[in-house]
């Protein structure tokens, strides 16, 4: 990869060079403004910024992950998204998509880090294994954590793509043998934005990047660091099956009559009521569908610890310490049963141990009755 030239073209210039018309460009800006939930004037703002801002250098690291975030990203619906972000956002280093490899690639990354110290955006896909000195993920002779710390030092902001980087995801599930650690636990003192999901929605990823490029600031984040525009509502809040939920009409098993009628998937394990994401609104694959629309409950991929929080196909609370397969209700009922048995035992013992006392009370009462 050629080192970045000192006079960088703007996004707009690059797009025109690629053969996009101004009309295509404006459509793209409109779409992005809509995704970001901006008011109508936002479109013009985005267009203006993309016309005058030179491309922002981006380093995109891959650690413990499956690359589903990248896959989701390059499929985000508008072709310009892929073009602008992949080619023009200047992905100076990303293992999956860059042309260079080996020393050349390392070179490009270090060049970007040097030339744009304090300016580049660091995108991280995957968690960082910290067990055994980090041996579980090494690239070019360095551990994931070393690479992360080096690149984070000069980053303007860090974007954590997906649940791996945001909360650890599958590889952090108990017993977490590699000590897979999300980024915010390793890097301090940098603006960090989490875009959880397994993977996150491509358009959401594009939206986050476009926001940073156009406004030069991070989008508004919630308390955990997720962009509010996409993570402030539960999947359940925008679910088109919600009327069935409110009516109490549920799919009991995936092959029953209720499933055919499109009833609510709560009883077959839908975690929509606990999951904060935009799937119900943005949907997937250019808005074609999303899990619930395809008849499968949401399993909460964007929530912290979703693997360890009960079975996927049932709605089941579990007692801590008993393992996720033990239902809280079974243990609770056993406890209530044991209590009842204990009470019966206690009642019998009372009548034996306190015989005199009880007899006195009863006699006193009866004699008084007779005396009247």
């Amino acid at each position, binding site marked *: 990869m050629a080192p970045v030239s000192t006079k960088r073209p703007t996004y707009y210039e690059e797009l025109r060079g690629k053969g996009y018309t101004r009309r295509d460009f404006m459509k793209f800006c409109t779409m992005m403004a809509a995704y970001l939930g901006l008011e109508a004037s936002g479109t013009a703002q985005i267009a203006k910024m993309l016309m005058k801002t030179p491309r922002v250098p981006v380093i995109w690291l891959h650690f413990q992950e499956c690359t589903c975030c990248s896959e989701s990203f390059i499929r985000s619906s508008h072709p310009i998204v892929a073009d602008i972000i992949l080619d023009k956002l200047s992905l100076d280093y990303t293992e999956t998509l860059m042309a260079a490899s080996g020393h050349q690639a390392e070179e490009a990354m270090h060049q970007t880090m040097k030339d744009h110290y304090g300016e580049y955006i660091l995108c991280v896909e995957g968690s960082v294994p910290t067990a055994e000195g980090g041996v579980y993920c090494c690239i070019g002779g360095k551990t994931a954590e070393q690479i992360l710390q080096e690149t984070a030092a000069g980053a303007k902001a860090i974007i954590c793509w997906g649940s791996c980087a945001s909360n650890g995801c599958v590889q952090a599930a108990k017993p977490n043998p590699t000590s897979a650690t999300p980024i915010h636990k390793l890097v301090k003192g940098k603006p960090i934005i989490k875009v959880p999901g397994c993977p996150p929605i491509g358009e959401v990823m594009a939206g986050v990047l476009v926001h940073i490029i156009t406004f030069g600031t991070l989008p508004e984040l919630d308390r955990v660091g997720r962009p509010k525009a996409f993570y402030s509502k539960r999947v359940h809040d925008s679910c088109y099956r919600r009327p069935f939920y*409110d009516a109490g009409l549920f799919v009991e098993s995936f092959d029953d009559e209720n499933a055919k009628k499109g009833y609510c998937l709560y009883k077959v394990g839908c975690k929509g009521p606990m999951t904060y994401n935009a799937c119900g609104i943005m949907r997937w694959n250019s808005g074609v569908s999303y899990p619930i629309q395809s008849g499968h409950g949401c399993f909460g991929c964007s929530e912290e610890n979703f693997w360890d929080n009960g079975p996927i196909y049932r709605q089941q609370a579990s007692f*801590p310490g008993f393992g996720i397969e033990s239902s809280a209700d079974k243990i609770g009922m056993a406890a209530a049963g044991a209590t009842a048995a204990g*009470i019966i035992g206690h009642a019998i013992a009372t009548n034996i*141990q306190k015989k005199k006392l009880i007899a006195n009370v009863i006699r006193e009462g009866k004699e008084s009755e007779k005396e009247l």
Partner: protein
Amino acid sequence: MTTTTSSADYKKLRRVFVWELPVRVYHWLNALAIVVLCATGYLIGNPPALMSQSEASFRYLFGTIRFLHFAAAYIFFFNFLFRLYWGFVGNKYASWKNFIPTNKEFFQEMWEVLKIDILLKKEREHMSVGHNALAGFIYFLTFIAFLVQCVTGFGLYAAMSTWWFAELFVWVADWVGGDFTLRNIHHVAMWFFIVFAIIHVYLVFYHDYVEGRGEISSMGGGWKFIEEEAFEKQREGVDAYTNTD
């Protein structure tokens, strides 16, 4: 105790006003709210399978169950807050001092009660007018459970409500690591309430049966009845905790 049949030997009972009206109202509102919350909460976690031919738009069963849960939740919460307040302004049997062990005597009495009422070690009664120390301490634990249930409940509710009050609890989910965990805690805690209720009701009957001092009715009229002799002792502060047989 005396075994003669002459009525003159029977101990005179003296009426003591123990539970003030606000305490009694609190108690029954609380009981009602807990029953409703446990029943509707259980259904929210395990909805019944209903087959129906009617259109979803004509039905609102689950919505109603949830509405009852939330309505009862508000009653439960504010009633609880009221009780905390009353712990500072109510009579001595309502005071917070009955619940939180602050001195050695409190622990001694707890041990006494355990021996007499639970392990049935001694054939005599434990004499206390309001809550005995063990019961008081267990109520203290239930207050903590109330708190857990209110905080987790309103934490879940924050996502469904637009009222600022519920939104005060948005931090809870993030604090415990998401709504999944929150729901789990909330569900598991229900069983504490159920087990507590079973034991509580049993012990009320136990005291009424063994001691004959009007334990059950005390939460109705507010009166308990204690022996004149025990009354004197309590007043003098002599052997205030147990009366020997």
